[in-house]
């Protein structure tokens, strides 16, 4: 079969799936089912901590399992570990590249991973030895052929999952740097990923510039499900706490909820006055609220069930680039191109 035939066949199959989606008898959306749910009352969240110390745009952050420490990375290559409760900086390292777009805290709290325009993901053990230079123990783990956009440790310190501008995701063994599995299927840069909170399986979801969100089986490397309803790049994906769904934030100024068992989009969070892309999304602990950071410097809080916006939070002076809810759900942290991070509660 020559290339052209394969391409045509592929497109036909693709259309068939799209048609099947349209014929689905039930096109129910969450808010219809949630009509009987009580609406949320007045919502007040304020900035409780402001972390200043990055000299340039903050691009990414992640929480430590201890619920108070965070790691953040910025455009000038700086990666900082903070105790955000006291606002003290505990560690800092300067990467040899700019635009460190990805960073992650290890589950043990004893290491961090980061990467960006260097096309790599490196792991730094955290040490309190004053004599030791943090950069000295750096371990280069992942190697891609384009920028690193996201990284995450799996359930232990010993494996890292990465997403890259080269259109692939990959799973790596930290100790040896060995590639354990690669994930091909996106048609363009992969911008984000999130691991599923599943009890038995190993799956994760990724989103990219091809407007697709894809769910992968970590063991086989296969894409098990894909969703393509966004109209622009998908900047962020995050699982609903039960693991049965995930939310996405996109440059098309909408956030959407996709159900894995129903295999379709079930809710869209948008407002005509929201024009700029959503860069980062995360759920509150119960999944009732969806926090989304936008490129218009604001954070919008959505009622996941009702589909309506609960609140808009002002404060940042440039685009919000990263947003994560803390592990115990007491607060969320946002990072911005205005060089600061804020903890809201």
């Amino acid at each position, binding site marked *: 079969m020559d290339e052209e035939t394969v391409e045509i066949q592929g497109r036909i199959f693709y259309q068939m799936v799209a048609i099947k989606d349209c014929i689905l008898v039930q096109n129910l959306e969450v808010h219809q089912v949630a009509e009987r749910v009580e609406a949320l009352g007045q919502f007040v969240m304020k900035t409780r901590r402001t972390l200043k110390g990055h000299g340039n745009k903050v691009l990414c952050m992640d929480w430590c399992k201890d619920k108070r420490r965070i790691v953040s990375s910025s455009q000038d290559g700086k990666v900082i570990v903070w105790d955000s409760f006291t606002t003290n900086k505990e560690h800092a390292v300067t990467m040899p590249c700019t635009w460190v777009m990805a960073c992650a805290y290890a589950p043990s709290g004893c290491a961090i991973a980061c990467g960006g325009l260097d096309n790599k993901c490196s792991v730094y053990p955290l040490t309190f030895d004053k004599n030791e230079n943090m950069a000295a123990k750096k371990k280069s783990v992942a190697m891609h052929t384009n920028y690193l956009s996201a990284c995450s440790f799996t359930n232990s310190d010993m494996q890292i999952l990465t997403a890259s501008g080269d259109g692939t995701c990959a799973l790596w063994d930290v100790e040896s740097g060995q590639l354990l599995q690669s994930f091909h299927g996106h048609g363009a840069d992969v911008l984000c990923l999130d691991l599923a909170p599943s009890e038995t399986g190993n799956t994760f979801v990724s989103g990219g510039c091809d407007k697709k969100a894809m769910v992968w089986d970590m063991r086989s490397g296969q894409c098990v499900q894909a969703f393509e309803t966004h109209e622009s790049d998908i900047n962020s994906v995050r699982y609903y706490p039960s693991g049965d769904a995930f939310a996405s934030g996109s440059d098309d100024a909408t956030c959407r909820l996709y159900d894995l068992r129903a295999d379709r989009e079930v809710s869209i969070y948008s407002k005509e006055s929201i024009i700029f892309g959503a860069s980062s999304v995360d759920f509150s602990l119960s999944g009732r609220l969806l926090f989304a950071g936008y490129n218009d410097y604001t954070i919008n809080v959505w009622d996941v069930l009702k589909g309506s916006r609960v609140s808009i939070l002002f404060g940042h002076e440039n685009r919000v680039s990263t947003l994560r809810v803390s592990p115990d*759900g*007491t607060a969320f942290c946002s990072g911005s191109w205005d060089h600061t991070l804020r903890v809201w509660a």
Partner: protein
Amino acid sequence: MAGGRPGVQMPHLSKMERVVVSMQDPDQGVEMRNQRLRITVIPHTVAGSDVVDWLVQKYCISEEEALHLGTLLVQHGYLYSLRSPRSLVLRPDDTPYRFQTPYFWTSTLWPAAELDYAIYLTKKNIRKQGALVGHEKEHYDQLHRKINHTWDLVVMQAREQLRAAKQRRKGDRLVIACQEQTYWLVNRPPPGVPSVLEQGPERSSCTAGRVQMNTEFYKREMERCRKALTRARVKSSICLEAYLKFSSQHGPHDPIMSGCLPSNPWVTDDDTYWIMNAPSVAVPTKLRVERWGFSFQELLEDPLGRAHFMDFLRTEFSAENLSFWEACEELRHGGQAQVHAMVDAVYQQFLAPGAARWVNIDSRTMERTLEGLQQPHRYVLDDAQLHIYMLMKKDSYPRFLKSSTYKDLLAEAVIPPEAKRRVFPFMRKPRHSSPSPALLPASTSGEPVAAASGPECGDGGT
């Protein structure tokens, strides 16, 4: 950065353009006035406050949000102030603004051309000697050096444009100057002002692909579509009901939704909540123990819950099941170099005939597992692990929830009293630091020991 249509790469631009077009609708748009400016009258101006009001009405948003959105429109050059065109702010008063001509829209004329900038700066220079200051002077000098060979063309163009402008009405001249100035304020912002057009590292798109759309790619797509066509889907109503159930069940446990007792540490600076919910605390809170009853997964995820479950299994002489499951988890998420050794250890301890902690798997699974063990890899025990997991979930877990162990835990669990609002007008409670997980010797669960409140420990500041 070249290539690509800006409208596609920056979808917010076309959306903003739609907004300003609606604003200029003769019937539904913002009220237009003639604005007297010194000795001329400028038509088609709008007041800042009218812009804000229009946005409030049109999008049903607050004044604060409308002002924010309006300011973004100004910052992107779609509106400019007639009185102080240098400042890209929206004043919610009678300050007159005008809509930028589509010729100068960011999506039309992007990226800004060096030649055009050179001409603009040259015009300024010619019109009034010494008018160029700061960054504009620097850019002018830079450009002069860079495109020196075509400088005659630049000066000629500049002179021609100035001459043509002189032939226009004073009002038009003013407007055109504002339009041009706004365009350059957006495309060449002064130092210290972040550029609204900056997008970060270049992304590719499907058309400009970094990914090869070859046979391989389409074969994979086909396979995925084939599976999607035949996949069984759960009825939507069932899936959606599940969200309602989950959210209402977990609502009281969500600190942002329902608060937390004694208080949210971020709000009151009091970290008692964390101390009371530390991974290995002597007496857990009621909410925490309740959560163990939501699902088997939630029980296992909490190290304290898991420890109590292990104790319970010991009374039933089936603790090896949980230990086996934990060992399999370690294998799956462990280092690549340890895989063989770990598989071996697990086999010896749990699966081999006569093993010290033999686990009861059905014969078919055992057969498959033993076969797989010939070529061990990290997923070789998946089937067996799943079997044991389901066994615990369907059998031991429900019994645990009915057991006196669990009931006692529930009864003895604490409900922290709500912290009374303390009023310290002049004194703030000090924020206690906690030892970093990286400081402590790694425990088996990898969790830090409960942080003690008390005098500041561990130095901050780097």
